């Protein structure tokens, strides 16, 4: 990984063969890991496809009325008499167990999945990353204590731990942020391990020793020299985990400790539909398909980002 320097340009070795004349200017331009990765990502169909799916999902989350004229939060749009009716004009997905429009509910469900998935990823990456940076940099006692603490969290099965946290604080009134908190508490140790390992590797490299010799303080070394070098693996893990957090949200909502009605979530819709699944599979299938496609999009994104940022794994 000698080609990664802290934030700065990679200086071409002097012995490089003379570049072709027409490429001369381009070769002189500094190319960092990030611009290399971006250059590489733009050519990957998987990256483009997943970005397109995520863009559509984001639009659904931000502006659901663009996709559906029915407001699923308005109980007047539901008709119990038409419960579990198949697709019809105006109701392309049919109706659910309470006679509500399935299409509108599925569209409006995107927001909670994305908000929970993305916030959990960001919080877990921030907490785990910061702790990993500190533990890796200072080492010794700080590192031992922090590592023991993460082992404790690793040992608790995450879905069961989140189930416990969710049911204990169900009446806290935090709504979806309780789900975010529960998943963050159980998710941050993953980022911690990655960050800590990357920092320990980077710490012993020459440029850090040089920075220290030049009188840089611990904060400057951590954030100016170590962080940029350790960031790539953390971002890879965070993107791959994002899909997992979205699936976990659905699982928790299915178990009744995630998103609570009248909020809409694909996990809740699946839990509702499963009671009549054998006679009316569609109310379960549609949210399930949207959930799977969302998770797939983020996993594909994570795969593409990993391949671009970590060429060794290819």
């Amino acid at each position: 990984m000698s080609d990664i320097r802290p934030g700065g340009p990679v200086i071409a070795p002097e012995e490089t063969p003379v570049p072709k004349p027409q490429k001369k200017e381009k070769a002189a331009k500094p190319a960092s890991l990030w611009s290399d990765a971006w250059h590489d990502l733009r050519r990957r169909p998987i990256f483009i496809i997943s970005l397109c799916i995520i863009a559509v999902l984001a639009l659904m989350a931000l502006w659901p009325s663009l996709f559906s004229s029915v407001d699923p939060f308005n109980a007047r749009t539901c008709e119990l008499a038409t419960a579990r009716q198949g697709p019809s004009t105006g109701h392309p997905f049919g109706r659910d167990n309470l006679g509500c429009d399935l299409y509108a509910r599925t569209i409006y469900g995107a927001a909670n999945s994305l908000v929970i998935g993305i916030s959990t990823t960001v919080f877990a990456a921030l907490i785990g990353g910061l702790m990993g940076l500190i533990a890796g940099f200072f080492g010794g006692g700080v590192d031992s204590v922090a590592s023991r603490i993460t082992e404790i969290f690793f040992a608790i099965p995450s879905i069961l731990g989140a189930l416990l946290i969710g049911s204990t604080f169900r009446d806290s009134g935090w709504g979806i942020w309780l789900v975010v908190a529960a998943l963050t508490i159980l998710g941050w140790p993953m980022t911690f391990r990655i960050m800590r390992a990357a920092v320990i590797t980077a710490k012993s490299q020459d440029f850090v020793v040089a920075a220290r010799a030049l009188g840089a303080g611990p904060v400057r070394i951590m954030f100016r020299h170590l962080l940029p070098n350790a960031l790539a693996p953390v971002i890879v893990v965070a993107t791959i985990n994002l899909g997992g957090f979205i699936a976990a949200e659905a699982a928790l909502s299915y178990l009744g400790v995630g998103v609570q009605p009248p909020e809409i979530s694909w996990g809740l819709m699946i839990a509702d539909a499963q009671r009549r699944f054998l006679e009316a599979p569609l109310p379960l299938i549609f949210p399930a398909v949207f959930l799977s496609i969302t998770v797939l999009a983020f996993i594909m994104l994570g795969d593409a980002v990993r391949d671009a940022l970590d060429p060794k794994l290819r």
Partner: protein
Amino acid sequence: MGRYIIRRLLQSIPVLLGATLLIFAIVFALPGDPIAALAGEKRADPNIVAILREQYHLNDPLLLQYWYYISGVIFRADFGVTFADVPVSQIMAGKFQVTLNLAITALVIEALIGVGLGLWAALKRGKAIDTMILASTLLLISVPTLVSGFVLQFLLGVRLKLWTGLDIFPIAGITEGFRSYLLPGFVLAGVSIAYLTRLTRTSLAETLRADYIRTATAKGLPRRRVVARHGLRNALIPLVTFLGADLGNLMGGAVITERIFNLPGIGNQLFMSVYLREQPVVVGIVTILVLIYILANLAVDVMYAVLDPRIRYE
């Protein structure tokens, strides 16, 4: 080696204590009064309530209650009694058997399919079949258990029987013995199958590039023998350790699968105990799961040394 195992066991004591204390504290904060819940609709006699609260140490501070609990578990293997006066160990015994059966079925399915597909992909690296297998692992990772569980239950459990008259996969319960675990086992193994396939492919592809493989081929050994004896055997080390560590994950993550297929395992029991506020059962189940996680990881590290003679623990 013996000293290493003892040291690791000693090191895992703080993890076990920390994890159980954490769970104990969360359960401690569960809303509602279990004694009042015991009395149901009627108001309980305050004298009886006082006696019961004293008997279950409910008036003591959290840490003291924890000490009563954990000392019972450690010194007398006593997991306490529920508020209905049933020994927790009695509730857990049968449930753990079910979840263990499920996890082992999942592990076997995972090993067969994962190693098989990974081997196939590694041997046909770069060909169409390799790409197809990689794409299917992406799908396997993306479809959450919640979705694959219901869909497979519907297609293989219900529809298959209707269409072909073959009653292979029971849709719920464990009354059909081994067959009852096949479908849930596959669903539970889903994501792990994908990871194991990828791991096998990477590991074998890397091993097949090693010098001793070229030597073996140059000696004139048949391709089959080179792959099986020289390649696969060496590539197997990370796979076995992955499978070992996965046992704990599968047991801890079985709650969704058990809910969908209505298996009376620990996940299902924990889910119900959380709702019934049977705190001792909740803590007991998680304690044993943490223990399984710790022991499985220790076994994996020991296995590493046994499989790879280059690794020596002091």
